[in-house]
């Protein structure tokens, strides 16, 4: 996996993960797969994002969001998880904070649930398998939109 260190210094551009103030965007990753969590974490931290916390299910995700609030800028939310699934968690987080920015992470074939999530207030979605370009694109699109 290539990180920022692999790219030459020639094109020194400010990392995507930094706000105008210079402070990093803080992200909460909610996913029951250690692997997917690690993937997203690696991609984001390599661009200067700060992964504030991770959660293994929707319930834990909701609790961590409440703890971090208002210092959380974005949530990546897996759809299928035990205990509480991503769509329910999304609903509850938005109930708590209607400005919450949540991106759904879904496996192929969960179109109906993705649609439902968008209707419930999710800002965007990314379909697995994840790659760096896709993830950064969607994350930045979501953060920059007002």
């Amino acid at each position, binding site marked *: 996996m290539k990180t920022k260190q692999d790219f030459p210094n020639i094109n020194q551009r400010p990392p995507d993960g930094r706000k105008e103030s210079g402070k990093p965007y803080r992200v909460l990753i909610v996913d029951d*797969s*250690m692997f997917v969590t*690690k993937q997203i974490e690696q991609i984001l931290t390599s661009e200067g994002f700060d992964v504030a916390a991770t959660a293994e299910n929707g319930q834990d995700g909701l609790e961590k969001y409440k703890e971090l609030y208002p210092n959380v800028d974005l949530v990546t939310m897996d759809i*299928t998880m035990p205990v509480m699934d991503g769509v329910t968690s999304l609903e509850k987080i938005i109930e708590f904070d209607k400005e919450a920015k949540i991106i759904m992470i879904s*496996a192929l*074939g969960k179109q109906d649930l993705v649609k439902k999530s968008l209707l419930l207030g999710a800002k965007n979605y990314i379909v697995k*398998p994840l790659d760096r370009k896709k993830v950064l694109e969607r994350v930045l699109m979501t953060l920059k939109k007002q």
Partner: protein
Amino acid sequence: MRVEYINPFVEAAFSVLKEVLRIEIKRGELYLKSVSQPVLGVTAIVGLAGDVEGRVLFDMGEATAIKIASAMNGELMKKFDDLAKATITELANMITAQAVTKLHELGFEFDLTPPAIFTGDNMEVTDTGIEALIVPIEMEFGKIEINVAIREKN
């Protein structure tokens, strides 16, 4: 196994493995097995529900599993630890999800149930007694046997 179900699994395995591993993938000849106990060492299982009941097994040796996990994580892994297990589980999920999507397009209402992974030390996979279709996949990391058993809910 219903003939319409076959191609989606074969194509999904091929396309996801190619995309995720970026190495040459070869498919061996398909065949049928009557009792399908996994044997190679590491097995990921994804259940199928909806119009049918059944499951997809991804069976491979531990060395192969570690190589695949290493490639997917972009780092050389030395043992089959929790992260490696999560990685293989995710791979199984992605392949099955893509197959199920193709099947949806063909008009078959399948659903996935959450995946599980088993290794040699806790290999307690009791089977359905349904005939299974075996899709052997070969690549430089070793081989994977994809083992699909589906029964219609009459």
